[in-house]
């Protein structure tokens, strides 16, 4: 029988190893799998490479993971946001690496990784510093850079509802990077607001087919990251 539901966030992330490449969903506070990230902080894996659009805010979630020096390198498009101080501080001190990738190229590289496309060409970033050192090629007069697919050991994603096969639906703009990240990791771990019975999700409306999901954990009331940041909370909770 196929049953991808595990009983806790701690169980879900238990086998994440030092040096792993981890994709973390979310754009700003929307779609961030904050409970999975906190479980990862508790679990202790270090020397991680994290692929995520931003670097977290305040002292919770991804920012807390970075603050605890668990992340060796960030691959992201927008590390500097309003409430993001942890990453900028470490980066300025030279204590964390950054691979800056345009947002659309980041999404496409992740999709390519999941789709078995090792590399593709895009016009994005041509004639800018981000194209330096990259292979260029012109197609019908359009100069492009070659970009590589990205694959991860683990993806951490948040969704709205899931069934035991791992079929997922998301809530509004919290969908963002979730669907592509689910496809691109050896082990995709999803926190869902609710688990539903097989057949409750309309087969025409499934966003992530279960084949891309390995583990599910139900977190009925996920924390609102913006609120935690506004309240100046820190993880681990003090």
């Amino acid at each position, binding site marked *: 029988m196929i049953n991808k539901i595990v009983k806790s966030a701690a169980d879900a992330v238990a086998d994440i190893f030092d040096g792993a490449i981890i994709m973390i969903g979310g754009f700003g506070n929307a779609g961030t799998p904050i409970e999975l990230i906190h479980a990862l902080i508790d679990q202790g894996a270090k020397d991680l490479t994290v692929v995520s659009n931003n670097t977290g805010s305040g002292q919770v979630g991804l920012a807390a993971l970075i603050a605890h020096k668990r992340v060796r390198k960030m691959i992201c498009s927008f590390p500097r946001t309003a409430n993001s101080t942890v990453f900028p501080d470490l980066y300025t001190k030279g204590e964390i690496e950054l691979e800056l990738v345009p947002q659309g190229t980041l*999404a*496409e590289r992740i999709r390519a990784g999941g789709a078995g496309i090792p590399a593709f060409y895009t016009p994005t970033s041509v004639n*800018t510093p*981000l194209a330096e050192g990259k292979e260029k090629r012109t197609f019908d007069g359009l100069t492009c850079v070659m970009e590589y697919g990205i694959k991860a050991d683990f993806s951490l994603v948040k969704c709205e509802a899931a069934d035991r096969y791992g079929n997922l639906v998301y809530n509004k703009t919290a969908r963002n990077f979730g669907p592509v990240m689910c496809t691109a990791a050896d082990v995709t771990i999803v926190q869902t607001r609710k688990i539903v019975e097989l057949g409750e999700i309309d087969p025409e409306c499934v966003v992530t087919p279960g084949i891309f999901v390995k583990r599910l954990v139900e977190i009925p009331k996920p924390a609102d990251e913006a609120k935690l940041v506004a309240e100046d909370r820190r993880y681990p909770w003090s």
Partner: protein
Amino acid sequence: MAQKVALDIPDGVYVNLGIGMPELVADYVPAGREVIYHTENGLLGMGPAPEVGKEDPELINAGKKSITSIKGACFFHHADSFTMIRGRHIDICVLGALQVSQTGDLANWSTGEPGAVPSVGGAMDLVAGVKTIFVITQHTTKEGKSKIVESCTYPLTGKAVVNCIYTNLAIIDVKPDGLFVREMAPGICFDDLQKVTEARLNRYEY
């Protein structure tokens, strides 16, 4: 400025608004026009800000502000969103700028200062993929330096990508043969404008 941009957005087009000043453009759509706003974090059919207390933390725009969705909207993931951008499906994008050159080069993501944390987001994808790029910006920096320059000194977002510049002083079209002033703010004359503009400006001949 935002109002001037809104006047130049025709009925029925798909528009992406950059973070900051560009977001204001949505407030000035002339009556009778239907414009569909794309936000690259996964929504086509972005509506105005919600009433206070009705925000959904999972319904935000690219600037991470709470928004609403209109009737006929749809949600999608990031790769599909950038299919719309890179695939030349978005008609107009309105962006802010640090500098615009007289050949339409845009610099709007980094001052290139050592130690600064560079953040690019979707800007390079937008200028590479959207059919028409409008820039909305103050004509000069706080220190009075021209943002419309001969050649950008900041790192580029894209080369020869800007179609029109909307500033507090003028509307300037970027043409293959240079910058052409289409309109000036009340009380500004061409010579005054050229004085505060590093790049060479041209007048349309009528």
